[in-house]
């Protein structure tokens, strides 16, 4: 991994749908130093980022929050990459030259668009080579996502390597069908599995296993998924918030694709993350030296709701 590749910087793109486990996987790879000496670029579509707090093991990191780098945030990504290229050109010695970049995309990004952005840029194409596109696939939710989200299929199609996560909590039969479906969508992509970043074994799929039925999807039918920042104020009422959120996920878990944010409570700073209706046990983050501006702002990502709707309904529970 650390050997130079024809002199250009090697870029690995890590993509995957919202809540598929990209950051969890990345966090373990950084801990294990899989990528060696690496500059990590983290992109989050939401304005209140949390992934950077989880990837502190990275040697160097740049955070691009507030826009997806495959579309609205393209310019910001180009600027960061050009700055890294410049710094590398001016490096005093070979040992300090940057050789590897890993870009963790937002869950709303199409990795192929990022690869073609670099290919079509007159400077970046001579400085950076995309060596691998890794796409993380959520074993629990992938079937529904592939059947309803054009973007999820595009992400899988663009992969060189597919890493299936949450396999430890997925029925082996379902996993077999999922692998068959992934082979159908991306026949050339290598498949492997991981649980909390650690490698797992995927079951051998006999040829008789049928993939999930996939209907053609029309881009035009997709109502875009958006990220709405929800400010809980300086002293959030955790209890009222959880009564509200549990009710909301129960009633509208198909629309609320992802919720994430750091909330200050008497029990510490809690990192809350949901994927559809499932909620991860909150992680207790260490207290920062200086107050973090994004604490108590929760990103609600999905479709079919507005900021006003969220605040009004939460206020009804909090009052």
């Amino acid at each position, binding site marked *: 991994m650390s050997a130079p590749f024809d002199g250009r910087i090697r870029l690995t793109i890590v993509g995957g749908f919202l809540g598929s486990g990209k950051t969890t996987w990345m966090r373990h790879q950084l801990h294990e130093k899989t990528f060696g000496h690496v500059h990590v670029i983290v992109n989050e579509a939401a304005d209140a980022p949390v992934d950077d707090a*989880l990837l502190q093991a990275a040697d160097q990191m740049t955070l691009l929050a507030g826009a997806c780098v495959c579309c609205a945030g393209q310019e910001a990504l180009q600027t960061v990459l050009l700055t890294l290229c410049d710094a590398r050109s001016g490096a005093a010695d070979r040992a300090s030259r940057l050789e590897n970049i890993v870009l963790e995309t937002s869950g709303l990004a199409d990795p192929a668009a990022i690869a073609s952005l670099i290919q079509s840029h007159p400077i970046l194409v001579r400085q950076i080579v995309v060596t691998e596109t890794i796409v993380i696939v959520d074993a629990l939710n992938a079937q529904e996502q592939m059947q309803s989200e054009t973007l999820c299929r595009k992400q899988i199609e663009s992969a060189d390597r597919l890493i299936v996560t949450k396999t430890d909590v997925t029925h082996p039969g379902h996993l077999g069908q999922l692998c068959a479906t992934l082979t159908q969508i991306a026949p050339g992509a290598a498949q492997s599995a991981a649980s909390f970043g*650690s490698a797992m074994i995927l079951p051998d799929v006999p040829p008789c296993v049928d993939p999930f039925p996939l209907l053609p999807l029309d881009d035009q039918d997709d109502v875009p998924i958006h990220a709405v920042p929800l400010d809980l104020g300086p002293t959030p009422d955790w209890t009222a918030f959880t009564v509200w959120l549990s009710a*909301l996920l129960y009633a509208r878990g198909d629309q609320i694709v992802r919720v994430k944010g750091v909330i200050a409570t*008497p*029990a510490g700073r809690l990192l809350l993350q949901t994927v559809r209706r499932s*909620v991860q046990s909150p992680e207790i983050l260490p207290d920062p030296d200086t107050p973090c501006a994004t604490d108590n702002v929760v990103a609600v990502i999905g479709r079919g*709701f507005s900021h006003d709707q969220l605040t009004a309904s939460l206020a009804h529970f909090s009052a």
Partner: protein
Amino acid sequence: MCSACGFPAAPGHWTEAGAATPHDRLRERFRRMQVLQKVLKGSGVSVHDGGMVPGIQVMSASGAQTIVPDLEAVWGEVEKLRGHVIDPFEL
């Protein structure tokens, strides 16, 4: 699972992660009931948690009752007793 690369997870159900001491936990349970009772007012379903035994008691107007383990399970039980879900956007 690798225990070295993450932060510690709050024990118990996620909705109960906001309290770390027994005192805070009890206060949170009573506050949870206060919020739930307000939200469920007029729905035909009521809830009760005396703070002594684990779980939340969910009761219908006709007297049917059950104990659920946590807040998340309350909404499924409320739907069963009422016949339709409580939608926070429609309250």
